[in-house]
């Protein structure tokens, strides 16, 4: 019997469940591999462990799926959509066929990932009932016999099932169907049993009585941070990401996650990062145990080195808290919202500045070597087209319209000619921009350019753009 078929085989009509002889008769030269359920399960477990990069609560969903509880973790990824895009992108690059769904409940996500119309679905909060109503009842993880019964009764979609009164439904089909339905709709809880990565630093703390107050939670975090740092020191590592998994009395798990800009092995630093995120934790009726994991760690020498910006430049002494400050700000504002600017060898203004990590070593670049011309303090995210009139190609525009107000140019400087980077992009082979700095009657300064040299059409169409202010 066929246990599984790849995309090419499915296109030829080979489906799981088809007798092998029939399949071979239908397609000549079929490549057949012996099914290896144990191997598949092991590979799936490996994949689930790899997904710890996204959330500490991951588990394989046999036979072909993965659970990821990303509650509280999406912030580090700039939102759920970015997290899912990163996950599916990486899996696709590993030549896997991926479908993904994000929903409030595992049941709804399960149904949408398998039976939804789009390869990636993100259900807004509380929208699971509407999102799964149109899906076939198979999406609910029901027993095969029940599905056959439903088909016989003309119940095709989950929406049909929701419409049936609960009493008769239980009498006819037993409690199992209703439980699956409630799990999908969020009326019944369904904790997932997380896999634990084999070799990461972790410490566990169970409480005699469930705790719920912020003070006692903070004390518990501090009690965990010390031993974790000792273990990190023994391994010669520093934490880059921290996960605190809190097991609630009702069986649900809550996760606090924090990232760091540089490897960290300082117990107070770690405790502070996590304690600050306590407000996002819902302790419910109480938390009975906590596990502090370090899913991502980097090598760190045995003495905590001075952080780049502080030590090597010799610019600052007495700011050892900078890396803690950077971590706290980036945990609260989101990963990637802190950066430093580094000069890039590019004349094209929008490409001349790169973002580097906030604690990267100093570049010590002289920015004036890249362009000696003055640059505006505000650079528009993208140049805005403006209506401008210029008398001669080498003259700054005499007037233009900006934010619906006419601007009369009193003085100007330029042009500064910037050529396209033909070695990077073919389209820029002959393109150029002529930049002008101009000042209006009130002394306000603008930075405009004309696409092209104003005479030869192959260099640009002569349209004007405002690119910066000040």
């Amino acid at each position, binding site marked *: 019997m066929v246990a599984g078929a790849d995309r090419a085989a499915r296109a030829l009509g080979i489906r799981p469940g088809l007798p092998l002889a029939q399949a071979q008769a239908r397609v000549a030269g079929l490549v057949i591999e012996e099914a290896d359920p144990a191997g598949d399960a092991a590979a799936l477990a490996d994949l689930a462990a790899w997904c710890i990069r996204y959330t500490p609560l991951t588990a394989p969903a046999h036979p072909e799926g993965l659970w990821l509880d990303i509650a509280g973790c999406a912030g580090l990824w700039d939102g759920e959509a970015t997290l899912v895009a990163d996950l599916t992108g990486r899996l696709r690059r590993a030549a896997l066929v991926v479908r993904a769904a994000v929903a409030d409940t595992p049941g709804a996500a399960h149904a949408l990932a398998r039976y939804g119309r789009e390869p990636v679905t993100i259900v807004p909060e509380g929208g699971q009932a509407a999102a799964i109503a149109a899906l076939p009842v198979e999406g609910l993880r029901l027993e095969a016999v029940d599905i056959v019964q439903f088909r016989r009764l003309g119940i095709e979609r989950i929406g049909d099932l929701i419409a049936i009164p609960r009493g008769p439904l239980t009498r006819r089909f037993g409690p199992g169907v209703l439980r699956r339905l409630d799990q999908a709709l969020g009326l019944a809880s369904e904790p997932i049993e997380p896999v634990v990565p084999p070799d990461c630093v972790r410490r566990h703390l169970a409480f005699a009585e469930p705790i719920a107050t912020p003070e006692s939670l903070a004390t518990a975090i501090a009690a965990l941070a010390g031993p974790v740092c000792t273990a990190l020191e023994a391994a010669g590592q520093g934490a880059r990401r921290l996960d605190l998994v809190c097991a609630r009395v009702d069986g649900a798990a809550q996760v606090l996650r924090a990232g760091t800009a540089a490897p960290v092995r300082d117990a107070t630093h770690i405790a502070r990062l996590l304690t600050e995120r306590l407000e996002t934790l819902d302790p419910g009726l109480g938390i009975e145990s906590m596990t502090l994991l370090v899913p991502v760690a980097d090598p760190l020498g045995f003495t905590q080195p001075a952080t780049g*910006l*502080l030590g090597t*430049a010799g*610019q*600052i*002494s*007495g*700011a*050892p*808290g*900078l890396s803690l*400050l*950077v971590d*706290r*700000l980036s945990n*609260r*504002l989101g990963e990637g*919202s*802190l*950066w*430093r*600017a*580094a*000069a890039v060898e590019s004349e094209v*203004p929008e490409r*001349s*500045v790169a973002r580097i990590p*906030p604690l990267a070593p*100093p*570049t*010590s*670049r002289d*920015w*004036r070597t*890249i*362009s000696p011309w*003055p*640059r*505006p*303090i*505000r*650079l*528009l*995210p993208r140049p805005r087209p403006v209506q401008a009139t210029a008398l001669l190609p080498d003259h700054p525009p005499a007037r233009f319209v900006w934010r619906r*107000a006419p601007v009369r140019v*009193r*003085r*100007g*400087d330029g042009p500064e000619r910037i050529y396209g980077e033909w070695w990077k992009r073919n389209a820029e082979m002959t393109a150029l921009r002529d930049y002008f*700095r*101009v*000042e209006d*009657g*009130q*002394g*306000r*300064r603008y930075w405009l350019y004309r696409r092209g040299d104003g005479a030869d059409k192959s260099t640009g169409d002569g349209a004007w753009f405002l690119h*910066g*202010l*000040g």
Partner: protein
Amino acid sequence: MELPGHLAELRQQIARMERSVSRRLAAIPLGPAIDAHLPAGGLALGALHEAAGGGADSEDGAAAALFAAGVLARTEGPVIWALIRPDLFAPALDAVGLHPDRVIFAHAGTSESVLMAMEEALREPGLGGVVGEIEGRLGLTASRRLQLAAEVSGTLGIALRRSRRQDDPAFDAPSAVLTRWRITTLPSAPPLLHAPEVPGLGRARWQLELRRARGAAPRTWIVEACDAQGRLGLPADLEHGSDQVPNRRRAG
């Protein structure tokens, strides 16, 4: 004039309460005429200051941002610059002496997040300065918190106000900042004073307006924009420098 004894005593008491004034903190000089007017002898460290652009510059605060960068260029230590929109262009910071190696940008997105980031950063001792770009209100409570944080750490804080509304009245709402500035661009002098017909752009010129200050009266100066070391200049073609512009209004 001799003050009656109890009045002098009261003054001392008030000065003790206003810690930042009485401590005579170190300050960043802004130029002799301005420093003589300010109680701290310049822009005091360990305090929160406010700067906004005037007129059409209210939305972008380009001149105000350059003013802030020029001041920070003369501090020591890393600078945290909390942005509401990532439109600050680093090469221009370098041009007024603030090397981008020193600046950590924090894109906060909303004014609330900017205030949060500013407060966190101002609490941190050892920073050179903290700038936050704020759109909308800067309330009394919020500014008081920032001012207290700055007093404790000794860090210079600058709140850059931005608004889509020109000369937004919200810029003048009461707050606990030590000084409040309005920076308006003025037509600059020709690059060659003796040959005004030669095209080109000289150093920008600003009207630097002290709208409010603890311990000093409002006043206005005309200055040349920050040079490569972040220092303001006195216009060469103005005879009496700072006293050219009379007080337009008194802000309390």
